[in-house]
């Protein structure tokens, strides 16, 4: 398995529409309409990227490897 990213890197950010002003730069950002879509996207991306989804509890999810 070739690991491109190193441990601790934020691989993706999933942010609610209303919270999108809280994020910028660095990682790919996915903007979603509601909480349900956010959860779904977080699950999908975590499995695709083999990463873990973390809820920052301010409308932002991040995906990162441990």
């Amino acid at each position, binding site marked *: 398995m070739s690991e491109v990213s190193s441990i601790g890197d934020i691989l993706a950010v999933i942010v609610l529409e209303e919270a999108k002003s809280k994020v910028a730069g660095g990682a790919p950002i996915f903007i979603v309409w509601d909480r349900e879509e956010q959860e779904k996207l977080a699950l999908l991306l975590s499995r695709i990227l*083999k990463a*873990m989804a973390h*809820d920052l509890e301010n409308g932002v999810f991040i995906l990162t490897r441990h």
Partner: protein
Amino acid sequence: MERYGLTIAVGIVVGVLARICMLRSDYRHFPGYPHGYVTHISLGFIAASLGAVAVPALVEKEFTAVTFLALAAQQFREIRNMERETLTQLEENELVPRGKDLIEGIARVFESRNYLVIASSLQASFITYFFDVKLAVVSSAVLIWIFMRYLATGHVVGDIADVVPSKPYFGYAGFKTLLMIDEVVIMEVGLEEARKKILKEGLGVIIKPKDDNARATLHKVGQRQAILHTVASLVGTKREVGELEWSPIARKNIDTGEIALFIVPNEPDMEALIQAVKLTPVLESARTTPLESRPGKMAAD
């Protein structure tokens, strides 16, 4: 000459027997396969031969012959390297790794068992030569028993700590996604589904060190990794490639030194989990005894 034949034969037989007796195959002992047995019994045979020929060589006043015991030491360091390399290679594909400390511990055990083989064949041939075979058989049996009883076994976590059941829950200081066991934060779980599953199937235990020596031992990350590996291989884990939510984790309560262990086992059986934690070996590299020193004692009270 005939005398030598018997001496060497008894030495070799006793040595190989000793190696076989010490070749226990359990979960953490990796040559569970026939080839592993062949390798180790063959090396045991070599060790036994070296021990057995030492006495006749000395009797013949061939003192230089003893130097090849040094060769033996070299040989057995090689065994240690071999074990270490094999296990390190396997480590790459382990979902719950053994950790460097456990690998080193296993490798060291393999090396030292060969020295025990030399010792037992040496004494067997010594007694055969200077006394007789019957006495050698008795003394070898006693020696092998002592080796197996005291030297080939070490302490286990159950000796140094109490293991009490606990339950994982979510929520700490207003953060509802933090997974907790007792007062220890284990990790942050973002997915709602994962949190539900963890609450339903996850298990937690607290490992309470019995004294400050034990606390220092459990403080070592390598020791904790060994516990996780043992537990995950005994009660199973739902950890899967890319699914980090089910990773077994052991974290320290920084104020008390207790270890909170979290796992999502295949079978949610608390008793089995506690047993598994208790029979994890205390690693030589992790074993620490601050209480033996003056500052350690002063700090303890």
